């Protein structure tokens, strides 16, 4: 039991990130509302980035901005994950913007945000053609 709690404590950020990833993933895949899907997407991606950032963290070290001339590798945390996440955040905001624009178009056409309803409407229209 002791061991389990110790393990959980060691993996606390990974556990939180994985939970959020699963929540976001399920929302993105299975929620019917398009805006909710977009929120789920964002949660999924930020959760992954949280995991990535936590990989770079080292207990008791400083953020990777050089103090004076001191470039001792034992003084700073790992800068690479932060760099990757920085790239990733911008990617995810771009994707969000595109999805939101698609949402607006789709709503203007079908007057609904529920993908099942929209699909049914589209099927019917197509059948009429």
């Amino acid at each position, binding site marked *: 039991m002791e061991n389990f709690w110790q393990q959980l404590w060691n993996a606390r950020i990974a556990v939180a990130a994985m939970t959020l990833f699963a929540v976001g993933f399920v929302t993105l895949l299975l929620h019917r509302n398009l805006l909710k899907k977009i929120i789920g997407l964002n949660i999924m991606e930020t959760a992954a980035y949280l995991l990535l950032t936590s990989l770079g963290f080292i207990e008791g070290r400083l953020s990777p901005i050089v103090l004076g001339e001191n470039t001792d590798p034992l003084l700073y945390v790992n800068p690479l994950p932060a760099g990757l996440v920085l790239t990733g955040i911008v990617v995810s905001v771009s*994707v969000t913007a595109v999805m939101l624009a698609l949402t607006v178009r789709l709503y203007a056409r079908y007057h609904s945000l529920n993908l099942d309803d929209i699909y049914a409407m589209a099927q019917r229209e197509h059948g009429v053609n």
Partner: protein
Amino acid sequence: MAFSVNFPLFSIVLCLLCAVVSSLLPSKAARAVSIALCAALAAGAACLASYGVSVGKATEYLMGHYPHPWGNELRFGVLEPLLVSVFAVVMLLCLIGGKRYLAADLDPEKSNLYYVMCDLVLVSLTALSYTNDLFTGYVFIEICTIASCGILMIRQLGRTTLASVRYMIFSLIGSGLFLLGLILLYAVTGHLLMPNVKESVAALWAEGRYRTVLLMSMALITVGLGVKSGLFPFHFWMPDTYGYATPSSGGILSGLVSKGYILLLIRIVYGAFGTDIFYRSGISNVLFVFGACGVIVGSISAAREKDVSRMVAYSSAAQIGYIYLGIGLSPGMGVLASLFHILTHALTKPLLFLSAAELASCAGSRQRAVWRGAGHINRVAGFAFSVGAFSMIGIPLTMGFVSKYRFALAAFERPLLMIPTLIVLAVSTVLNGLYFIRVVVAIYLPPERRTDRVRITDHPAYAVCAIAFTAMNLAAGIAALPIVRLLESSLTLL
């Protein structure tokens, strides 16, 4: 080092520049820029491929001043430039052949943006083929996702918008899974460049450490790329996406974009996981099963479809299934068959989409029922469609025959999987024959009413594209052996 090793860098930068410039240009100029770009890329990649053959080893190209594992790298042997060259040629022909529909489907004010998106699709395919770094792969996967959604949704019908939303959602699910897999892999190996990752993975696997994480990351990366390219349980966005896009986009999306992801997967399997570990982990068997299901389900759905464009799109699901089946079979022969099938599909599907659109415009509808005699009215399109259909069925002299033959050969290597593979091949060939032959017979029945014949000179752009595709298909089908040998030798360089 020959000067041609710089071509990948130049082609990527050139594509980016062209994309940015095209956003300022009027539509006609943007089109010319895109076409010239495709031609330049194809030529450069062909040079590079011949360089790769002559050197006989893969080249690692630094992106910056720092060697691996610190910097960023491109890596290319023979396979990558060869495929880039094919991609560029196919895109060129798609843009030329679909000109008529592009003019009709695009909003004239925004049509230059279509070519911007095409350039961006091309740059992402190029970068996905050449990159040696997993995270760079992720960034370009996202560019590819947005840009391919862009060329899809530019035709602003309700159905296309709906199709792009579904396409986007599944693409994003795929890239999310890929991202998580990549992070897990980074967490236990500490590297992002494929050669370093491979080293660490081999060491960790030998020691037996982090087994779950490694397995999970392999599974996530494979499934992520599988979802993005339309592997079986996630294939149902395909008919809408490919069927309702403007024909050029349908060709580009089905023929090229999904292949870019598959190529990346093959390179990751060879370059980052190592074939030993990947094929021992059991994920390959899952790929085999899903691939086989995809072949059957795709073929059955296609046979039930009455709209020809959608039928061709469902057949894409089946072809993607074939490719994954081959990857799942075995690292040598199986992947070789898949690679050949990638070429087959990339050269055949755009032809089918464009010809179907052409025949549909003769017949007045995309429903199969009214296509009677369309092949007499538009002979080029009829001939081209028939060749494409024969190639998908796998009739000798076409590329499709060669790839099916290679799949069968690969199956003999795996005694356990041989029977299922052969059954799948047989069943799908029968089904393919059923639905494609039905259409081919219909278009060559005597027409019900006399209509003016469409001459070649009426749509010269389409004729050029159809003849080029048909010629390449037949040439590669007849003289398949050199291509297979080339692919075989290129596999050893991965």
